[in-house]
């Protein structure tokens, strides 16, 4: 079954455990600059949002990738990066509309979420279930149900 990462900004407390877990998983050290996930915080509002690769269906990064290092994997529903094929042109960095592909100057490599091969470390270490790894059909249901609940409340109160 295809799985996807779903973000619940309303549950995110900004602790950055996801960044820490990701950096350790991929770099073997706490170098958060190289995390594939980043939490953006607004101090005045006290709000934070985790951002990572959305594994787009029509992924601009795959379209611009000349050596076809970045390719959609039909089996998993993810966009895979084959580092051996990557020529470091950084076109994916420029093409990603969300800024979710980055160039790491320290290791001269593209940084992009690979979902830890189907067991994302960020999800494992998120203490608030602000990140979830779910079957894609389920993930949509989560949001729908939550919103349906709000509608229900509105009608019941009306």
């Amino acid at each position, binding site marked *: 079954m295809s799985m996807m990462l779903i973000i619940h900004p309303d549950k995110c407390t*900004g602790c950055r455990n996801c960044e*820490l*877990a990701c950096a*350790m998983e991929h770099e073997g*050290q706490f170098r*958060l600059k190289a995390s594939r996930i980043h939490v953006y915080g607004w101090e*005045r509002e*006290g*709000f934070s949002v985790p951002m990572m690769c959305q594994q787009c269906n029509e992924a601009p990064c795959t379209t611009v990738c000349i050596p076809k290092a970045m390719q959609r994997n039909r089996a998993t529903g993810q966009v895979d990066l084959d580092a051996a094929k990557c020529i470091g042109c950084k076109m994916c960095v420029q093409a990603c509309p969300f800024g979710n592909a980055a160039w790491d100057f*320290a290791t001269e490599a593209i940084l992009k979420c690979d979902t830890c091969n189907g067991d994302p470390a960020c999800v494992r270490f998120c203490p608030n279930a602000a990140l979830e790894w779910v079957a894609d059909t389920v993930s949509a249901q989560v949001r729908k149900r939550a919103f349906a609940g709000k509608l229900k409340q509105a009608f019941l109160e009306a």
Partner: protein
Amino acid sequence: MHGWMGKRLRVNLTDGRITTEALDPALARDYIGARGLGTRWMYDEVDPRVDALSPENKLMFVTGPLTGTLAPTAGRYDVVTKSPLTGTIAASNSGGNWGPELKFAGYDALIFEGKAAAPVYLWIEDDKVEIRDAAHLWGKQVPETTEALYAETRADARVACIGPAGENLSLIAAIMNDMHRAAGRSGVGAVMGSKNLKAVVVRGTGAVTVADKAGFLDTVARALPLAKKARITSRYGTAANINPMNAIGGLPTANWQESQFAGAEKVSGETLAETLLLRSKACFACPIACGRVTRVNTPKYRGEGEGPEYETDFAFGPDCLVDDLEAVTKAGYLCNEMGLDTISMGSTVACAMELFQRGYITLEDTEGLRLEFGNAEAMVEAVRLTGLGEGFGKKLQLGSWRLADLYGHAELSMTSKKQEMAAYDPRATQGMGLCYSTSNRGGCHVRGFTVGAEVFMAAMDRKATEGKAAFVIGQQNRQAALDSTGCCNMVGGLGPDLYGEFMTRVTGVAYDGAAYSKAGERIWNLERLFNLKSGLTAADDTLPPRLLHDPIPSGPSKGLVNRLPEMLPEYYSLRGWGADGVPTQEKLRDLALAP
């Protein structure tokens, strides 16, 4: 080195010299980091008798070896300096994201010495370090300063700064980082102000490394669910303590004249969660998220920010007899914006209210401020005036001891070593009396905390003194070690074995629970030596006379006083100190503090 970055930055503000120095691995092993290592450096470099606000005092920002890792709550640093409020060593601990960022920039610590000729700030971007002009920031409050610095450095930089209170050398001024987190206690903000240092801005892109990766992650996986157990704190913040402390008659009320507050429920963590709370917010690597993002819409107290947490809530609520949670919250916001310690600020207002109540100060003294208990508007205005250093605020900014002493009634200051105590009446919880009186930074609830055992778990008889000395010593030692690792006392309950294991797996230096606690004992004794050299004596290990002689007048703790004299001699003896409170040579040798 793993865990430690192996470098510290020394900044001489007098001549502008900036040097990078290697960390001494043996000292790092013995003093861990943060509070411990900072204290060692202070002891070695600064005469404890210096005027705390003179250029001869040094101001150190020190992280721990766990800071910046995934160990639960490993996001902290300590500001270590000599305190202008207490005259003791100061180690003020803060979370947020600033500490880890300093490590990612490549440094364990910053040491500021001397004094800049005009206001400056320090901008650190990895190995690029520069002292910049801060004339345009001087006078600005904390949120404005922080945002201005984001704009002129980087949006993703981390800012630690002072507000007007630190600039005005208020003895209860804090250093604020990430806008809402405070290195709050002991007037460290005034030391920063005395050096003309407005802010320290950091951006780092480097790595904190770990000696045993697999082992470390295994320890994290075991520790995380345990740390999450503090669910009540996640849900209601630390102000969850209001109701249980009130229930036993241990919630200091009206400047400690009472120990129960009729309006407790109205200012409880539960009420806060139902009313002003927008969401919870965590510091770096913290699974608990006790931070309260709140908003007040009522025009009189309009504002947004964080808090109140328990101590702030007590200080502006019960202690000032104010049951208006919006006013309490607003007073907390003002402290954060002005850069003031909420505990000392609220307690100082409460002290002023008692001086006013008893006629020791008049409207003439307060310049028209009607400081009656329960007057929420006057309380909020008092905080604003203190932050700006205007009117009666010029006196309030000295803290409650100097304020009360000014009018001949120092006995009404609820302090130990001139620092305001926290929200646990030691008449109701005997162990806290020992914690407050022997704390190396004056009145404080995070230099030993017996309330967990005495009240929340009811594992010890709160009214008894037996066994408290040994218990407090163990707690003080472990807390000293925990603070030095860079973790938060909210996970202190996880115990020394677990944190010893974290230390071993992160640094590669073997610490078992005993070695870890021993480091804590060494740090505690070194703090004591600093204080003794600064001129303090055993006579300073005491409590306000009210707590020793005036029984709690009503409620479940009615009739109780703190029986410190039953505990203190045993404490000295178990510490390996003489009856004069001075560590014996034998003890110092045992701790490798004497040859």
